[in-house]
């Protein structure tokens, strides 16, 4: 089998062959540098323009009365369906549980209090289950 090496293409300049690429395609680096500089210059100009525009007195939105406060979304007008049943259920359970774990007055004048259910169960063991007296 004959060896087929790569012959230099006729017409390529000797410098291009030496450099390994076609020098004629990139005559100079000036346009590239200019382009990069222009892009950065435009960025800085746009930033400065923004700063100037924002700092002009009176440019802010003054009347925010119609704006929606995203941090506290308003509920739609009632009557509403249950927005979050899980939360409602947990609230009801929590309220009842707190009631069953605390001391407090039911009727202070008659000396009637509510006591934690654990304590009531102890008291009931002493008292028995007979009906309450009037």
């Amino acid at each position: 089998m004959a060896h087929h090496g790569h012959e230099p293409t006729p017409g390529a300049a000797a410098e291009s062959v030496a450099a390994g690429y076609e020098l004629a395609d990139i005559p100079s680096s000036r346009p590239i540098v200019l382009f990069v500089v222009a892009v950065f210059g435009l960025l800085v100009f746009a930033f400065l323009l923004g700063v100037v525009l924002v700092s002009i007195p009176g440019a802010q939105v003054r009347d925010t009365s119609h704006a929606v406060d995203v941090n506290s979304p308003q509920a739609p007008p009632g009557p509403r369906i249950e927005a979050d049943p899980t939360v409602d259920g947990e609230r009801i359970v929590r309220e009842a549980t707190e009631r069953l774990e605390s001391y407090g007055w039911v009727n202070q004048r008659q000396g009637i209090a509510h006591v934690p259910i654990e304590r009531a169960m102890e008291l009931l063991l002493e008292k028995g289950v007979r009906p309450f007296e009037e």
Partner: protein
Amino acid sequence: MAQPSRTWIGSRLARMAWLPLCLLLVACHVDMYDQPRYQPNQTSAFFSDGRAMRPPVENTVAMGSFDPNSPLLTGKVNGELTAELPVELTAELLEHGRTRYNAYCAPCHGLAGDGNGVIAYRGDMQVPSLHQDRLRTVAIGYFFDVITNGINRMYSYAARIPPEDRWAVAAYVRALQLSQFANVNDLSAEERQQLGVTGRVE
């Protein structure tokens, strides 16, 4: 004659070599998996109503010492609601009643017995509070009777709560009532102090 026949069989066998692969598809028999017996809630082609679980014949009673008039099963003594527990009142009974109450009663009556259960809230129902004079002064058998037979819009819970558990619930209802209607004079000195009372309250 035999020679071509043998090759014919041989090629037939070779061509059926894929058949064992079918075993992978049919996997196994299911007659151990689904044995010819009924499981709870299964359907049945044998009975005309389609149920494998047979409802007992009407007026069926348990064998043995079953007494349909015993206070344990009716909540009544000589036709009157009993004021005494037919079971022993213990801390375990109350604790057991508490779990039953919270599972079966609390959805409507509320964990605290005030009628503010989640279902009552959600269904917009008026559920009577257990903390009213009528129910505080009623005999304990009344609660057993209501659980057993239902009342007004409340269905019977007899199918779900066995009689002994119903008494536990009834006793716990009394404890609930007491927790919301405790006489300050029954409380300890520390508890009275917590409520801001020093001496006896008349």
